[in-house]
């Protein structure tokens, strides 16, 4: 059976695509600190704020806008009320015209605070009717009154409380903190994009990923199996999909009354298999070369760092590099860099010139009509865009991504003129392209020039067509990527990362919490592998949950999804073997 047939016969995994919650959702930052609460004259409230802000400038990096600046007595939490009552025996009662102000950390010295606030102290309640009317409550200027000898010297009551440093994640939390610590405001409209992707973005992506995720993950496992069976790597595979092509396929299928899912493979722009045993070090034979014809590679039975190649040979990194490699073959790019004095780059460290049959097939042999047509119009809306940390709503860009392709499809007639073939195939013969980059010190260029003949078109958008890194692409993986690959995914600007829950890794970088709720089918029920992952018994003690796909601290964010396979499905039979004999025992402990 040739590759095209094999791919056509791929059965999709059956299951459900579930968004991976962000670390901000699963581990909402709760940090508390001490603060002072001072009772002041209500009429001096604005002066108090001015005095406090002037004396103790606020830390802009730590906005405390979720904390009320003032609270009336009836808004105080119980422990402060109790403290007040206990205190009232020794402190003169005030006339009730008071309010409580919060002094948040960093806390000043008590004396400093006392001095600063003294002018705004509450006016003591007159116990004797003989009090001169001049000092009638509220009318006296608090600034003038400290000098007044007649009432007791104004005394500021300072109480201590704990306060939450970060804004509440939901109304319940706000209510709880209000009750226990200090009045807290929950603002649902506050910029939450740092907390989690906005629901409409998430749902739109989910809608586009759901229908064919089972196919792409099934293909990822085929790629994984290929790596493993070749002895070149561990059984980990990656599939890069262009959602714009998927949208195109859907439109066409709808017009032709066909099932869009039949042509799922047309949206695959590259696949990459793990090749960690395939690289030669210091000219010595690679681990794969040392054991020709032996699969899986003997090195994969345990985790021995010296035999693990490196993360740049992991499936995600290779699939990403193959996209880059294809673009580097573009004439324009070669011309640009041939004339510059680009320093030497070490030889093919990611084995992007040593393609497996599946890798080669998707990178060079397919250039379906779907993809050609798809390339032709969504270019503008898909132009690279950035989501900068400073951007208060970095997702607006993604929203337009999800809206625009549809819009453009509706706006444009379904019969699009075919684009002129990119001149890439001519590049090789073009004598005007200088050849100095064929330089013994720069073997990459040599190899790339002499590589497989280029087809007329590629599913990978060139830079001229708006293609930039892996912007707007999705990556489907057989396993959860390691930390290095997870960050590589972000640096490559993928839109989304999807992997089966059974492929969770102790060393993974994406999951944000232990598996909760119903667990997927137990593939390994007949072996006693305690280290197995995805069985639902993973606990926080087993691993660190980074949820790297969407962290507020990082400049780049992507959507993360897990694929939860249905239980008792017949189709998983094939993969059971592939995954379950991933090794015997401990070898789930490695980086995918």
């Amino acid at each position: 059976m040739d590759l095209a047939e094999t791919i056509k016969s791929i059965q999709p995994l059956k299951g459900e695509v579930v968004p991976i919650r962000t670390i901000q959702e699963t581990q909402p930052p709760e940090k508390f600190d001490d603060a002072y609460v001072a009772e002041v004259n209500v009429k001096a409230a604005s002066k108090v704020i001015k005095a406090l802000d002037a004396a103790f400038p606020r830390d802009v990096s730590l906005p405390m806008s979720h904390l009320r600046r003032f609270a009336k007595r009836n808004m105080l939490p119980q422990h402060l009320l109790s403290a007040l009552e206990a205190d009232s025996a020794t402190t003169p009662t005030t006339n009730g015209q008071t309010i409580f102000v919060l002094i948040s950390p960093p806390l000043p010295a008590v004396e400093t605070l006392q001095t600063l606030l003294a002018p705004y102290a509450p006016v003591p309640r007159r116990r004797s009717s003989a009090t001169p009317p001049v000092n009638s409550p509220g009318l006296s200027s608090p600034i003038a009154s400290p000098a007044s000898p007649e009432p007791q010297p104004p005394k500021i009551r300072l109480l201590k409380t704990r306060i939450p440093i970060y804004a509440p994640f939901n109304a319940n939390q706000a209510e709880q903190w209000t009750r226990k610590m200090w009045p807290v405001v929950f603002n649902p409209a506050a910029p939450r994009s740092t907390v989690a992707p906005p629901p409409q973005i998430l749902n739109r992506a989910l809608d586009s990923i759901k229908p064919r995720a089972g196919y792409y993950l099934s293909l990822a496992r085929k790629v994984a199996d290929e790596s493993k069976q070749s002895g070149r790597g561990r059984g980990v595979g990656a599939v890069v999909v262009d959602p714009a092509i998927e949208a195109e396929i859907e439109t066409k299928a709808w017009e032709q009354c066909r099932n869009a899912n039949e042509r799922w493979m047309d949206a695959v722009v590259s696949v990459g298999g793990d090749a960690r045993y395939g690289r030669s070090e210091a000219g010595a034979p690679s681990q794969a070369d040392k054991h020709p014809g032996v699969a899986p590679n003997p090195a994969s039975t345990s985790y021995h760092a010296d035999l693990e190649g490196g993360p740049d040979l992991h499936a995600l990194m290779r699939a990403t590099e193959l996209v880059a490699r294809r673009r580097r073959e573009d004439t324009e790019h070669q011309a640009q860099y041939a004339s510059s004095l680009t320093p030497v780059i070490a030889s093919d460290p990611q084995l992007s010139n040593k393609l497996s049959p599946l890798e080669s097939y998707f990178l060079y042999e397919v250039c379906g009509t779907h993809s050609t047509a798809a390339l032709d119009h969504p270019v503008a809306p898909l132009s690279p865009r950035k989501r900068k940390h400073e951007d208060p709503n970095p997702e607006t860009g993604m929203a337009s991504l999800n809206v625009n392709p549809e819009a453009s499809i509706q706006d444009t007639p379904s019969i699009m003129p075919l684009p002129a073939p990119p001149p890439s195939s001519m590049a090789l013969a073009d004598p005007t392209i200088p050849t100095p980059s064929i330089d013994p010190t720069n073997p990459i260029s040599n190899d790339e020039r002499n590589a497989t003949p280029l087809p007329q078109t590629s599913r990978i958008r060139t830079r001229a067509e708006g293609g930039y890194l892996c912007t707007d692409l999705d990556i489907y993986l057989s396993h959860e990527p390691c930390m290095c690959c997870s960050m590589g995914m972000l640096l490559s600007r993928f839109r989304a990362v999807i992997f089966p829950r059974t492929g969770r890794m102790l060393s993974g970088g994406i999951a944000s919490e232990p598996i909760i709720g119903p667990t997927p089918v137990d593939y390994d029920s007949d072996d006693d592998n305690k280290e197995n992952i995805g069985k639902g018994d993973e606990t926080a003690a087993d691993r660190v949950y980074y949820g790297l796909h969407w962290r507020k601290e990082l400049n780049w964010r992507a959507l993360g999804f897990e694929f939860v396979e249905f239980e008792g499905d017949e189709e998983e039979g094939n993969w059971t073997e592939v995954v379950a004999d991933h090794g015997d025992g401990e070898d789930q402990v490695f980086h995918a």
Partner: protein
Amino acid sequence: MDEPITELEISPAVSENSRHAYWMKQALLMGEKALQVGETPVGCVLVHDDQLVGSGMNDTNRSLNGTRHAEFLAIAELLQSHPKSLLQSTDLYVTVEPCVMCASALKQYRIRSVYFGCANDRFGGTGGVLSLHSDRSIDPPYLVYGGLFQKEAIMLLRRFYIQENEKAPNPRPKKNRELNTAFDEQNENEGENDGNVLLAP
């Protein structure tokens, strides 16, 4: 989750006049090279027994691959003449704190220790944002020392952004230019932070 990193200071005397200074200068030279060819000027060298065993600079623009950071190139060079195991007794000198990706890679590659120039509070993986060098994982932790020639490293970056701005009529690098501004601001801040950036084993 991120454990605070223990601070380990490179005293000014050491930083000016030691072999550490020598190697960091070599890393800065790699950064200069990157600047000359229009790459984000980050450079690094790998040093084993006082010998240079690999050097690298950012290569993301030429390779069209956003993951081709200086560290990966240096390691690839090392692997042409040495086995991976050499990294266990090798130190990295890099002008900017390794990003999260590289910090994890360096751990998987079992680097012995990392000396960096300026910190990276956007992507840093050795204290800037995350602390992968010391986090619990299936690979052992490694030592990290920061702040060595940080001003020089920052100046390299600044020169890069100015240079990009001069190219303004060119429509293509527009996006890059905006992205770079983010980095620039960060490093501005870094500059003000002088002396506070010393990190850690």
